[in-house]
């Protein structure tokens, strides 16, 4: 449904930023965590996850770096930048206000 898609588009960034706020992660880990923590409700397609990461990186909200451990394939880890932290805080406030308004009108409570 198109409103689903719009909601997901809008929430993709805050999902990624909040997971990176906990610690540095690579792309596959982010996709897995989002699916696990949402009990399968939210799934990130490769074709949308990586473009979102690159967009966030271009805007300076996250920063990627290659990490190589012996015997393993190199992996690209992302971390939250100071700008990203500000954006995350702002987005959390916006989403929180949004859900409060939804609740007042349509009696929808966030979990």
């Amino acid at each position, binding site marked *: 449904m198109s409103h689903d898609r719009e909601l997901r588009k809008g929430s993709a960034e805050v999902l990624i930023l909040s997971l990176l706020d906990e610690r540095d992660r*690579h*792309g*596959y880990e982010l*996709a897995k965590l989002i699916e696990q923590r949402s009990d399968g409700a939210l799934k990130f*397609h*490769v*074709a*949308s996850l*990586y*473009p*979102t990461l*690159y*967009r966030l990186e*271009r805007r300076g909200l996250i920063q990627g770096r*290659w990490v*190589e451990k012996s015997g393993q*394939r*190199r*992996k*690209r880890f992302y971390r939250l930048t100071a700008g990203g932290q500000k954006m995350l805080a702002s987005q959390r406030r916006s989403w929180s206000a949004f859900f409060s308004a939804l609740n007042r009108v349509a009696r929808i409570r966030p979990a």
Partner: protein
Amino acid sequence: MPDWKSLIRARVAPLSELDAAREADIVDELAQHVAEHYAELVAAGIAESDAVNRALAPLQDPARIAREIARADRPRGAAPVPPPQGGSWIGHVGRDVRYALRLLRRAPGFAAAAVVTLALGIGANVAIFSVVRAVVLKPPPYRDPSRVVAFLNSRAGGTPTIYSSSLPDYEDWKRQLVSFESIGLMSGWTFNITSLELPERVFGARVTGSLFPTLGTPPLLGRGIEPADDQPGGDEVVVLGYAVWQRLFAGDRGIVGRPVMMEGRPHIVIGVMPPRFRFPMDDVELWAAIKDNMTGMPRNGRFMNVVGRLKAGATLASAQAELDATTAQLEAAYPETNKGWRVRLAGAHEAVVGSTKPALIALAGAVGFVLLIACANVSNLLLARASSRRRESTIRLAVGASRGRLVAQCLTEGIVLSTIGGACGIAAAYGAIQAVVAFGPADIPRLGETAVDVPVLGFALFVAVLAGALPSLAPAMRALRASSLKDGFGDYSTTGRSRVGAILIVCEVALAMTLAVAGALVLKSFARLTAVPPGFNSERILSLKVFLTPPGYRSVASAKQYIGSAIARMASLPGVEAAAAISQLPLGDPSSGQPFTIEGRTFAPGERPNADYRAISASYFETLRIPVRRGRGFSEDDRENGAMVVVVNEAMARRFWPNEDPIGRRIHWATGYPQFDTAPHTIVGVVADIKSAGLDKPERPAVYAPYTQRAFPWLRWSSFVVRTHGEPESMARLIRQELTKIDPLQPIYQMAPLDDVLAQSVAARRFHTGLIDLFALLALALCAVGVYGTIGYWVAERSREIGVRMALGATARGIRTMVVARAGALTTVGVAVGIGLSLVTSRLLSSLLFEVQPFDASTLATASAVVFAAGAAAAYVPARRASSVDPLTVIRGE
């Protein structure tokens, strides 16, 4: 284990907007994601083939992922769409320009590098062109200036100059020559204007009534001096220059018709000249009629400037032929004064500015080289970008663009860059020109007129178009060879790109080497010149000048009294060690040559020797610490009515008494004035030579006479030198006060430490040496940037090869050596070509050199070492980068 990268590449459309390294990283990251998913599936018990399919399932839509990634990886804003095909050529140009600007906005780093490089090259050329235009190219402000010629006199071995004619010769030319519609004469003259609040000394000229009609410049106000003004009797008249009219008379338009007091007589101001008018050079600020002020001037008093206007139909050659015949007649009629003298005609403007041409040509060549180096650097930058836009070119060809359009697009991009660079360069040149006008040497004529005017802007536009088109040639050639779509998006041959880059670097190094050699030669020359001992001690010496004018100083006696009082008063001041007078300050005044004879020797007519005549006080040699080699200097006993004595310099002793002692010999002046020529002068001493005409000129024979026995009344100017205990300038005010007490109407001028006078004597050389060295450094810096970029690209191209080498055991040091050797090879070829080029260009520099040969082995070696060092330094960072390549990363990328 599946080859994930190949599988990813097969399922994702080419990421055409990205460069190769970025594309490789993205493929790697996607491969990592898919590999992790696969591993989880296999760990969960899924069969390997199923696990592969499920892991790759999200990559079913190749175009979608490429599109999303390209969109995400692009900066915000729409991707520049290549201009559509079809339409008029103006429409094409407009679209190409807009497209080029969009591309530059997307690559600000590249744009900044290219614009700064071009701004430096174009700005330097605009600045030097504006100087050349002001000094040489702008026509002088005379009517039909190509018809105005100067008379330049010289004897065998001498250099013809503009101040070389005599009044009697001029009068004969005026009477006899028919090739000229008019001939005029001017003699430099110092005026004291005493009708102002404070007396002002102004350097000007006395001219014949025919001079202003010969030049033909209409005045700004009033009229010029006419033949009627030059007759004896009647009002004295003066024409003011624009600068002195503004400075001393506040630009008062009512000045015409009013008198000013000069030389104790009122001179009526009859006109004011326009701002650009100068004759012959910037230092002459006003013109008065000669009238009878120079009556009786002898035929060998050769210090005046004569110009003529050719009649319609006469040519320089025909006039020269007629003048040669007249010169022969005068030589026969006046052998004493005219034998051996030749008179050459030259364009009046050329005669004044001709001596500046060698230096200006050298500077123009230097900035031309800088521009070529800048163009080579930008060409390398454009080539690198062309490689990353190969897919765009291929696609455009596929959708119908002609190769000509691609070439036009390349040229437009280059010209857009150079236009922006040119605008910045013009701004920089404007600033540089202000500095040149403010701090440039005073003896380069018309330097103060340097400005960014319409012709200079036109030149800037021409240079900008050239600087845009030249670097675009290589990428345009690339575009012509763009492959068609059916051949795929193959890489352009990287060896081809490397080869062009290498050739450009060799050219840059050759040009930088040539400039480095030129810079080293002029610097060595300047160092040698300033190391020449002047022959006198100028430490703590304050120099100053007075010009003693009527009515108070018509007689020689009154001038002598002033000088004696001045020396006594100054010497008695606390803070003054010694004071002395000299008629011509060494290195600060032109010399005054006088013919003489030696008792007991005969000279053929016209072969009479000539020596500089210098009237000095007894304290002069001691004040300037000029050693007396033999005999004695002067003392207070050498008075006006005593035995006439002189001291000669070593150059005079060597020339005329090479094997004997000149002490006791006698000379007679041969001025043509009997009252000065009769008395014999006994030589009582020989002093060391000093550099009076210039540090680069040998000392002429000179005769010093005590000013108390001074012979020639028209030498009314006097310089003083005062040795102080402390800083010379600290005594300036006190000294000025003391001299004003003697006569408040005699202005003191050109008061300056003698060290400053010495520095000023080499100011023009310092100026052009400094500029050539600046441009050489600029060229080296640009060349180093070019080497850095080219070697960096070469390293990036070979990162896999380097990784493989290191994996096979090559050390980091070995890799660094390989890179530096590559840079060294290019630099060596460039230096060799540069040495060859500099053998040609150094020849052109020889008139600017002093005691340095154009082919100087040590200079070539030094310049080569500097260029090699710059190349090695530029290659160091790419070499370090190469040696820190991780072989595993590179090999995994295979």
